[in-house]
């Protein structure tokens, strides 16, 4: 098992290098750089833009060097934990991201928990009562969940939370708590705001998971050992939960590793619509303003997260199925 993991980790290194190069090329694709757009903005507002000052800034951040040198500066910094400097926020990228990382993961984990708690029982129910009205209802709901764009669900959820429950628009805190120190009232306020993004982020994933669980469960229920279990007179509850679900849940465990990274990436658009203080809106804003180190670091971290998720998935699968390890 250990050799398997080590081998997989070693294989990741060239992929990582290739990814970091691609990330750098992609964020350099737009013509011009941050200072060009800043200069254009200043020119619009009639302020005096000093060409010399901009050149000095470019030199300071190595923007005057050829691209491969800029890349080496950036990547060697990344290895030391210095991801560069955000021109727009005038702060190190690592600080900006670290501030928002906790909430990003909290949100994604919440959505993950929500997905499993909702999708599992419904999947089991749908499989047991195949072609019943309930099954059709949930199948239909799952299709809707998969087909409505995330930002629309976010808009509708925002509408409901504001106009039906009187919450505040977007964000995670009521205005009076925004800068207040943490206490129980604030925690409660936070939790009351949390459910909207968690449900919205988890919505499409729940739909997909529900379908997987239903299919997997249906396959298992056809197996002979289930018939045997029933024939020897086991209670139906026991047959379902101890015999069927335990096996049917395997394909879901294998995708578990990938779900968190997918949720983090998938929540970006929802977070922008809901105005959440997570990394998503940070990335979006950085793309708009060509704040290249910030945008690049976000993209790189998301890719690394996905790689780790893949690794997790493989390890879980290898753990569950010894045949894969031996290959």
């Amino acid at each position, binding site marked *: 098992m250990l050799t398997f993991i080590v081998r997989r980790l070693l294989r990741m290194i060239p992929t990582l290098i290739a990814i970091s190069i691609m990330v750098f090329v992609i964020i350099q694709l737009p013509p011009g750089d941050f200072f060009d757009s800043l200069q254009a903005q200043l020119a619009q507002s009639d302020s005096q833009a000093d060409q010399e000052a901009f050149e000095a800034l470019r030199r300071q951040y190595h923007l005057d060097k050829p691209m491969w040198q800029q890349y080496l500066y950036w990547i060697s910094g990344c290895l030391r934990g210095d991801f560069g400097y955000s021109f727009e926020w005038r702060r190190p990228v690592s600080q900006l991201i670290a501030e928002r990382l906790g909430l990003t993961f909290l949100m994604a984990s919440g959505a993950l928990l929500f997905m499993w708690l909702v999708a599992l029982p419904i999947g089991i129910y749908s499989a047991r009562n195949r072609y019943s009205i309930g099954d059709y209802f949930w199948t239909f709901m799952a299709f809707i969940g998969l087909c409505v764009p995330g930002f629309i669900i976010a808009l509708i959820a925002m*509408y409901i939370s504001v106009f039906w429950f009187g919450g505040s628009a977007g964000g995670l805190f009521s205005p009076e708590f925004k800068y207040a120190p943490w206490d129980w009232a604030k925690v409660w306020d936070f939790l009351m705001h949390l459910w909207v993004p968690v449900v919205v982020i988890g919505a499409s994933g729940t739909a997909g998971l529900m379908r997987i669980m239903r299919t997997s469960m249906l396959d298992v229920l056809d197996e002979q050992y289930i018939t045997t279990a029933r024939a020897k007179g086991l209670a139906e509850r026991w047959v379902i939960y101890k015999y069927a679900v335990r096996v049917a849940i395997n394909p879901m465990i294998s995708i578990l590793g990938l779900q968190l990274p997918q949720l983090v990436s998938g929540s*970006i658009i929802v977070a922008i619509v809901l105005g959440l203080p997570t990394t998503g809106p940070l990335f979006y804003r950085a793309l708009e303003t060509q704040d290249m180190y910030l945008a690049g670091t976000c993209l790189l971290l998301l890719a690394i997260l996905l790689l780790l998720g893949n690794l997790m998935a493989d390890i879980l699968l290898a753990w569950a199925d010894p045949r894969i390890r031996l290959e």
Partner: protein
Amino acid sequence: MSEMVAVKTPPVVDDSERIYTAGQWYLAWRKFKKNRLALASGAMLIVLYMMTLFSGFIAPYEADHRFGGRDFVPPQSVYFFSQDGFHLRPFIYALQADFDPASGRKIYQADENQRYPIYFFVSGDRHSFLGLETHLHLFGIQVHDGDGIFLFGTDRQGRDLFSRVFYGARVSLTIGLIGVFISIVLGSVLGVVSGYFGGWVDELLQRLIEILRAFPQIPLWMALSAAIPADIDQLKTYFMITLILSFLGWTSLARQVRGRVLSLRNEEFVMSARLMGASHWRVIFRHLIPAVLGHIIVIGTIAIPEMILAESSLSFLNLGIRPPMTSWGVLLQDGRSLTTLYYYQWLLFPAGFIVVAVLCFNFLGDGLRDAVDPYSK
């Protein structure tokens, strides 16, 4: 192979006997026909795409036709009955703008004394229709004092949302088709080559795919579309978005096709084709691609709704299609703020079209998948 047999057998009249000698496509169609939901979705999609083709004709106005003083008109109802009884020709009432002091907004009321009958094949804005310029529209009202028919209401600039939805469909519905077409061509050729030749070609392609797939989809799409210069013309933006969407799309297709080809490569029909002197390319294009074509079509159909959703999300974030070009995502940008959600909910109508299109493609894809798989029940 079964197709060859089917050709040689004399025509069989009885349907139940035909099935034993039928070709792959006939069997698939037989099975597909039974899935009513998929059939209905397919029909619905044909209707949607026909509407896209005729969008200039169905839309009563040009996408950018502004009606002065007619901003945020709510959807108008079509009536058959007025105070003087039934009218065979449907009509709408004229609008009366009022000021609502409570909310400080303009509100509209139907003026029941002024009826605007709806006529068919009326002359209106100029548009090109199947390559020719025309003024003809499917329906409209014949008044010229700045009033119009707004079945879905109007936006902030007084543009008819109904017309804009139809113009937006042109972009939203075609971008997925073209994007999937590019992914299919790239993915199936590279997938077949990779699986058939193996060796270093396979290794190289698989590594490339591995790297591309290491990127999370949505952030990569966002980063790539942010790189599209803002000042290039609309058509170029459109094609760049399409390319970006297929940039990742081909990889999953290539992988699946490769898997299929790997298992087919050692089949006897490939070996006999080689022994009969067929070149590698002939084997690939005459034997392997047709053998996996059904599978490719299914994956393609399932990929289209993903691309439609992606385009609308990107355009919604102002990273995809940009005004003045319209797509359903661009239209939804207007519904982004809470005020519009509260007062002008009809601005979310385009979302309904996205959902219908995506739903239909998913049902169709499901039906096709069951149909081409000969072993499924």
